[in-house]
């Protein structure tokens, strides 16, 4: 039961311009692993030096921030549309 995953423009330099994939991942950790497998060039950009996913990357399922749905515990359902969107901030120290 694949989910549709839409990738942002900011990723495309590292994904050979692929903007959309279909994934059979069951949850968010599996999806991130699959994205990294499929696009090895993206991996070093997705994670910081500490190995964690960079904090400005947000995941949405259909219309909701995945953090409201249980985050890593949320199980993807057939037909889910997953959006990957970097935060847009312009802050300053």
């Amino acid at each position, binding site marked *: 039961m694949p989910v549709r995953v839409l990738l942002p*423009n900011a990723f495309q330099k590292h994904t050979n311009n692929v903007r959309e994939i279909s994934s059979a991942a069951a949850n968010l950790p599996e999806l991130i692993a699959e994205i990294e497998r499929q696009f090895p060039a993206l991996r070093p*950009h997705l994670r910081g030096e500490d190995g964690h996913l960079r904090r*400005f990357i947000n995941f949405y399922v259909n*219309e909701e921030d995945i953090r409201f749905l249980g985050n890593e515990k949320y199980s993807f359902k057939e037909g889910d549309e997953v*959006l990957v*969107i970097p935060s*847009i901030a*312009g802050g300053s*120290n």
Partner: protein
Amino acid sequence: MTIAYQLQCRECKRTYGLQPLSICDECFSPLEVAFDLDYARTRFTREAISQGPLDMWRYRALLPVPDTYVPQTPAGLTPLLAAPRLAAHIGARNLYIKNDAVCMPTLSFKDRVVAVALANAQQFGFDTVGCSSTGNLANAVAAQAARLGLKTFILVPADLESAKILNTQVYGATLVRVEGNYDHVNRLSSQIADRYNWGFVNVNLRPYYAEGSKTVGFEIAEQLGWRLPDNIVVPMAGGSLITKIRKAFGELIALGLVEDRPVRFFGAQATGCSPISTAVKNGTDQIEPQRPNTIARSLAIGNPADGMYAARAIRNSGGWAEDVSDIEIVSAIQELAETEGIFTETAGGVTTAVTARLYAHGRIQPDELTVTCITGNGLKTTDCLQGAYEPHKAIRPRLSDFENFVDEHNASSQLLSLAGEAHAG
């Protein structure tokens, strides 16, 4: 050629020149405009500024526009008012109000950021601009785009206050009402900006747009006689304004226009949408998103883009953040209007109520020079005062009726006053 300013990644510091872009494609962190302060040093002087226009463009040497740009959208240079009567109410003795309720042309501080964003939209050759908005930004984009002859697509939450919708449509803007809250609208805007070759002021033009907020800080310093306040209280939605006022003060210090002294930054939110104040109170800069539920819809951003930077700026300055209930917001709107003659929208009620609490809790001392930032006009959010004032029975056009009215009025005022004293006692 000297590069006066360019885009730079906030985290990995990679530079991007000048393009409509807000995200680093190396580390996916936000981009901001970095200025060459040495280049600005000879151009951004007290004397040059004093000879500039009577609007925010007097600070153009530290705004991201080319030297050749001819501003067509005057905004800013709003009053900085001493507020002795509000001060007496809340236990302050040295309180000022930066009054962007009268920022032109659309009565909110968003006119400043939009002026800079649309200048850049023109530079990049966009014929269509857009934004996601809780209302004030929609008004500002619609008005200024009309003036510049740009087409607009403006996305707002469907349940927005009717005045803010009307104040967008009147300029001929294409308004798109989106089911959901601001965070839903904002996410859709990100996707649209990825797909269409348009200038979205708070998406792909955001680094330029955000610099416009610095003019609030520049003006406060100049209006205080080129000095910085001890404290500043700023409303927080996405968290950008407070960080940019801090950047402005830092640039003024770096260029020697003001004495280097510490300024404490205080952030104000509504309790019904308080992700940044919650983070500050918990001693973290990790922002947990919230589902907004407050009448302060112009501040109702549950996943604030600049939240982390705002929390950090507050903490590093030795400041604090507070949040207040919807009832306190309405009371504060009335208190500010009754004491200082300033009718602000719900966001200004938030800022005023939080300011009062900061004095009450001893976080701000009475004699410290404190500026509280009012960012929007009450005429746009009159809904929140529905039922606050009972209409009086009309009188006949007779002097005796008027005299009776005055007697009744005085009697009820006296009762209220006695009740107040009894309550206070």
